[in-house]
């Protein structure tokens, strides 16, 4: 992993198109701004990971048993 030290307001450029700016540094948290082309998705990693995990769990779902369908449809 490449490690940099940056001060408040300073940035990093990744490739030609992605800029990461360190807006504020508090005790225990950092506020980061990201400028990137529209085709690049940026997400909090834990959110992305939870969705990934859930999709994998969902793909192992059992076929809904009849009583589940009945309960849902009333």
């Amino acid at each position, binding site marked *: 992993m490449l490690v940099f030290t940056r001060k408040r307001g300073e940035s990093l450029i990744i490739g030609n198109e992605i800029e990461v700016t360190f807006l504020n540094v508090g005790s225990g948290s950092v506020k980061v701004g990201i400028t990137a082309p529209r085709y690049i998705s940026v997400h909090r990693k834990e959110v992305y990971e939870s*969705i990934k995990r859930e*999709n994998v769990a969902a*793909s192992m779902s059992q*076929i*809904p048993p009849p009583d*589940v369908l009945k*309960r*849902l449809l*009333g």
Partner: protein
Amino acid sequence: MRTVNFGEIEVPEEKIIHFKEGIPGFPQIRKFAMLEIENLKPFNYLQSLEDPPIALLVVNPFLLQSSYQFEVSEKDAEELQAGKPEEISIFAVATIPEDPSNATVNLMAPILINDRNRCGKQIILLESRYSVRHPLFRAAAKNGVEPG
């Protein structure tokens, strides 16, 4: 192609749904089809056309929570090439574990499909108040559907 749960299926070209970026967890799979199976209503299966064992159970989230609402980011709308909201179908992915009373739906990351051009995307709602694991039955009960 041959599916695990539904045997041999044939999907005409115009029914193939393209997920340009795949979906989280399955980024390499781009082609899916929506299988409507009569005796599994209200669920559908979003069946991968490239990796047969992969199929996601999906359900209309508004059936579970009529107040469900979210905003689609400009980027996501652009990716789906959505002209107007009516073109878009919305699904939530359901997880049904061994004990079905613990079934959940993912309301934080709905699947959007543009019915006009068959573009699909699982979007992630920013600052979402909805859960990745929203209990299926509490959701249904809240909406006035009584447990049978």
